[in-house]
């Protein structure tokens, strides 16, 4: 249930509870007050009767007794005697307000007499709207008679009903007003929360969006501060996202730059020899031996450039991803790595045990191995050795890279081997190489282990499961 409905309902329920308790108290007090008041009226009534009745009873004056009863009936405002009976000392009726019901000179009806209390007053019997009052009339220490009065309490009962109705109606109206007011107040109070909830829900679907300026301007106090904080948060999140995408773009540009630089270097290496050979041909082209040597040189130079271009194309060609890995791919690594090895004066020991095509995709594995080897080169000191070994083993292709460096930092080891596979950014200062390896390993369910290498540095082993169908083709 919504907050703006629930709170008013709670308020209404509490109000009703309070109203019920208060009403009960009021009615209780009212009943007591009425009872007391009625009793006082009754006592006054009986007192008023007693003085003239006593001498009339002593004289046994039937008429006088009746006349007193009859006339006193209309004398008491707010009191309606239903029946008044006066008996003599022996309990015989002298006169009654209704002589038919209580004939003069007869015994008082025992049922009537028993409806009166032992003491003088019996409070109102609400069911019957009656109160009972009995008084012994005494003169000179002798009982001369008794007055029995039945009083009508309908008026009191009706008054109580009116009061109760008024209470219930008043409480009802107040409760309704409070509940309605509560609904509006809570609705107003929670409206900022609803707006924020709306924006946050949208943000999960369509991207985070600030609260519109108009809404912020219309709001006041805490809501306004809340909206402003939210909008600042939205701005920060957006800035971070923009920054991340800019960084990624820059990283791509850097990779492209490195690739272009490598390619230029690879092409430039034989270019000097080629130009020299062309120059030689121009000047001494007539000499067959020189021509042959120069052409041979030009051919080898062009072949070298072709190799570089081919491996580069193979490495970055997108539709090559499903081509199975072959020994050539491993040999290509040596070609790709040659400029880096030269620059750092390193030696590569390439131990290629792959028999033919195996059921793992060539392109990603080449990229992963290339990155691992580049890292190994970067870690190894000048003049040392970097080794790569690729072999088949129990339905897997296992590629192992050793370096002679100081060992991979724990941070990097942890990043490489952790199995949660989230596309987290690489550890600081590591570049994207490890990230590429990890992503590839995850894509092809490969496992990565890092250990110490016999060469003195780190050994990274990549175990890639071989796909089933290629295995069959291989077996056939």
């Amino acid at each position, binding site marked *: 249930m919504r907050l703006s409905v629930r709170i008013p309902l709670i308020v209404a329920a509490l109000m009703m509870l309070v109203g019920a308790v208060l009403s009960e108290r009021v009615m209780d007090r009212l009943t007591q007050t009425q009872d007391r008041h009625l009793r006082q009226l009754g006592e006054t009534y009986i007192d008023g009767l007693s003085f003239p009745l006593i001498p009339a009873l002593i004289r046994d004056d039937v008429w006088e007794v*009746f006349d007193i009863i009859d006339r006193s009936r209309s004398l008491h405002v707010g009191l309606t005697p239903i029946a008044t009976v006066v008996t003599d000392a022996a309990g015989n009726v002298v006169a009654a307000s209704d002589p038919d019901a209580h004939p*003069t000179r007869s015994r008082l009806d025992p049922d009537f007499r028993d409806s009166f209390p032992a003491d003088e007053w019996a409070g109102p019997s609400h069911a019957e709207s009656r109160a009972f009052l009995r008084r012994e009339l005494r003169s000179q220490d002798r009982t001369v008679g008794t007055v029995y009065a039945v009083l009508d309490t309908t008026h009191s009962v009706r008054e109580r009903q009116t009061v109760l109705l008024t209470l219930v109606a008043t409480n009802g109206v107040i409760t309704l007003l409070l509940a309605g007011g509560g609904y509006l107040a809570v609705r107003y109070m929670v409206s900022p929360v609803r707006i924020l909830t709306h924006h946050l829900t949208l943000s999960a679907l369509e991207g985070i969006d600030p609260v519109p300026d108009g809404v912020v301007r219309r709001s006041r106090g805490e809501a306004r501060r809340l909206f402003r904080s939210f909008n600042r948060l939205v701005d920060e999140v957006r800035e971070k996202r923009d920054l991340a995408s800019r960084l990624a773009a820059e990283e791509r540009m850097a990779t492209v730059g490195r690739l272009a630089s490598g390619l230029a270097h690879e092409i430039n290496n034989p270019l000097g020899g080629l130009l020299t050979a062309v120059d030689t041909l121009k000047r001494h082209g007539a000499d067959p031996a020189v021509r042959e040597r120069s052409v041979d040189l030009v051919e080898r130079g062009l072949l070298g450039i072709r190799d570089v271009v081919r491996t580069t194309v193979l490495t970055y060609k997108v539709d090559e991803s499903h081509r199975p890995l072959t020994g050539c791919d491993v040999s290509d690594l040596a070609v790709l790595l040659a400029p880096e090895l030269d620059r750092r004066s390193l030696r590569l020991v390439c131990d290629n045990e792959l028999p033919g095509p195996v059921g793992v995709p060539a392109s990603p594995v080449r990229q992963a191995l290339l990155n691992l080897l580049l890292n190994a080169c970067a870690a190894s000191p000048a003049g040392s050795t970097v080794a790569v070994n690729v072999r088949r083993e129990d339905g897997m292709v296992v590629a192992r890279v050793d370096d002679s460096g100081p060992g991979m930092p724990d941070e990097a080891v942890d990043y490489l081997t952790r199995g949660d596979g989230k596309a987290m950014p690489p550890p600081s200062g590591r570049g994207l190489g490890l990230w590429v390896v990890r992503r590839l390993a995850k894509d092809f369910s490969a496992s990565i282990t890092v250990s110490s290498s016999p060469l003195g540095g780190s050994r990274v082993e990549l175990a890639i499961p071989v796909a089933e169908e290629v295995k069959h083709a291989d077996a056939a």
Partner: protein
Amino acid sequence: MLPHVSRTGHTRREVIGALGTGLAALACPTDLKAGTPLTVGLTPVFLNSDLALLDGLRTYLKESTGSDVQLVMRRTYQEVTALVLARQLDAAWICGFPYVRHREALHLLGVPLWRGRPLYRSYLIVRSDRTVADWHGTRGDIHAFSDPDSNSGYLATAALLAGSGMGIGEFFRSSFYTYGHRNVVRAVAAGLAQSGSVDGYVWEVLREIEPEMTIQTRVIRASDWQGFPPIVCAAGDAASPRADRIRSALLAMASGNAGRSVLDMLRIDGFVAEPPALYDSIAAEVDLVDARS
């Protein structure tokens, strides 16, 4: 203007006594009483002491007699009768029964004319829903009398029973006095008494002015016509100028407007001089009842 019967009931006695005054003055040396107000006693034979009626009566008497008039009201016939016998009142309106009892000591000043005659009757009434055929059916009742000194409210019924050889205590289970004819009607209407003895003149007037009360009662027996309650003075005062002035005022009442309006309130036609023999039938009842006791 209608005579107003008071609903509270205790005053009716007074009006009656009012008219009697004058005679007592005769017995006294006139100088001794000259200048003192005329006193007239009233008893509840009549209707209630309506203030307008009393004022009208007092004003009329004052103008007619030329003296101040004091109306003296008492609760019972007995009290008023005693006062007039003791010559403490110049006149009194009493019942025929005490007049007969004290005929030697009292003197008639005037008798009201009701419906053209100086006569009235006693009624025996029951509640209108009772099915009794005649007075015999009231045996065993609780009976309401008006006054032990009233002819119509007591003696007539006592004489009726005595004529059949019965006393009140034997015939009725119980009885009580209400000291007012209107009260008798109230008592019977309310069921306090099952039957009652009431002045026929009062009952008839009540039937006009309080029909809602009399409709609850029914007359099951009317007595013979008897002398209307008279206005008397002490026999010793009969020749006094004071009594004479009152007598003149009474007898002249029907001839002037002021007097007529008082008579209208009383529902009577006027006052006439009647011989004591008018009350012989009551005297016969007294003898009958006395003979039984």
